[in-house]
């Protein structure tokens, strides 16, 4: 299993949830991949690219084949595609790689220039996912039913998380996230990582760690599309707008 790679130009995206009733990521991600191939970037999908837990079969059937066709073109253009598994697509891990388009890994240690980075979905640091896996799974499936009835309920949930995080006494890390994710990033940074990139929480942002390293979350393409750009060791979080890209770092 490959977990260590070298790439001078890499973009990281996460949480597309293709096949989820709420997700409209496909129409944004396809032009993004074409742009990335043109600019000679490798691409890493940092977990939950495809939806299994809350999938709508018709959406999966409609969205996934075209997505894989574009990834195939990306690969044929000589660029690498990496897929880090998340909690919504963990069941797919066995055959994603067999499709021959991408390299699948549980996490990636990336060397770019003089910078050493860790890319990981981050669900194993989610206290709810780790402590109550059955309840987490059941609620995820239940939420999937609500999303089929009214997909916009998801936006309400994300706003609630941001509100709750703002009310928290210790405002550490990225707005909307529980502090456990920044703590996990700090732990990793002590092992010699200059930047740590998670997904999972759907809250994009950048936060400095006390070790001098940085912690980034690439957010979710279900909401506002963001990507982490790694170029010769320089790392930044950028909002994807086809005509204009706004850097947040």
């Amino acid at each position, binding site marked *: *299993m490959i*977990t260590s790679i070298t790439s001078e130009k890499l973009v990281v995206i996460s949480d597309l949830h293709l096949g989820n009733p709420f997700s409209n990521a496909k129409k944004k991600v396809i032009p993004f991949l074409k742009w990335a191939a043109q600019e000679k970037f490798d691409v890493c999908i940092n977990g939950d690219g495809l939806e299994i837990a809350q999938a709508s079969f018709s959406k999966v059937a409609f969205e996934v084949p075209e997505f894989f066709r574009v990834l195939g073109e990306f690969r044929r253009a000589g660029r690498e595609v990496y897929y880090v598994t998340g909690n919504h697509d963990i069941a797919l891990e066995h055959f994603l790689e067999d499709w021959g388009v991408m390299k699948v890994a*549980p*996490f990636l*240690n990336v060397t770019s220039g003089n910078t*050493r980075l860790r890319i*990981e979905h981050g669900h*194993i640091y989610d206290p709810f996912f780790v402590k109550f896996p059955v309840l987490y799974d059941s609620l995820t499936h239940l939420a999937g039913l609500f999303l089929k009835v009214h997909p916009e309920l998801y936006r309400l949930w994300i706003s609630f998380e941001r509100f709750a995080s703002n009310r928290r006494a210790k405002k550490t890390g990225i707005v909307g996230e529980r*502090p*456990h994710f920044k*703590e*996990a990033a*700090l*732990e*990793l940074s*002590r*092992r*010699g*990582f200059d930047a740590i990139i998670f997904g999972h929480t759907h809250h994009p942002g950048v936060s400095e760690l*006390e070790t001098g390293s940085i912690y980034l979350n690439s957010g979710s393409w279900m909401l506002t599309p963001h990507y982490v750009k790694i170029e010769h060791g320089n790392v930044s979080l950028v909002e994807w707008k086809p005509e204009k890209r706004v850097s947040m770092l």
Partner: protein
Amino acid sequence: MVLKPKTRFEHECLEDFEDGECVFEEGDTGRDLYIVQSGEVAIIKKTSTAVIEMAVFKKGDFFGDMALLQSLPRYASAYAKGKTKLLILKPAGFLLKIRRDPTFAFEMLQQLSYRVKMSNDRLLHVVEKHRLPVDEVQSILKILGGGGDAKP
């Protein structure tokens, strides 16, 4: 529960080393595990005929695992190459570290597996180069494979 950094990192510390400074000597009885945070560390083994640089560990690599996992004296010496910063894990904190950072265990297994393969490859290379007798090679492989008394 999120632990305060002071409590969280109670069983580990950071230490700086100058170029050429000794991290530990062959035969020392320390049990700490080292992770290279920056710089490099050379592992040096003295034999009856030569001094051999067995490995150079870079940022993110770990060493000192034999002493930690098997309670053996240090097999070789370790020296800093250039300015080096090491994260030092105390034996008492090792399992806590794995609980907080589970991928560390995965990476350790991965590196150990890689090192076993490298040792086997080196052995086979020597066997082929010097055309060693088959029974001698078999007995070495039996020891390396953990047969008989070689198991912990």
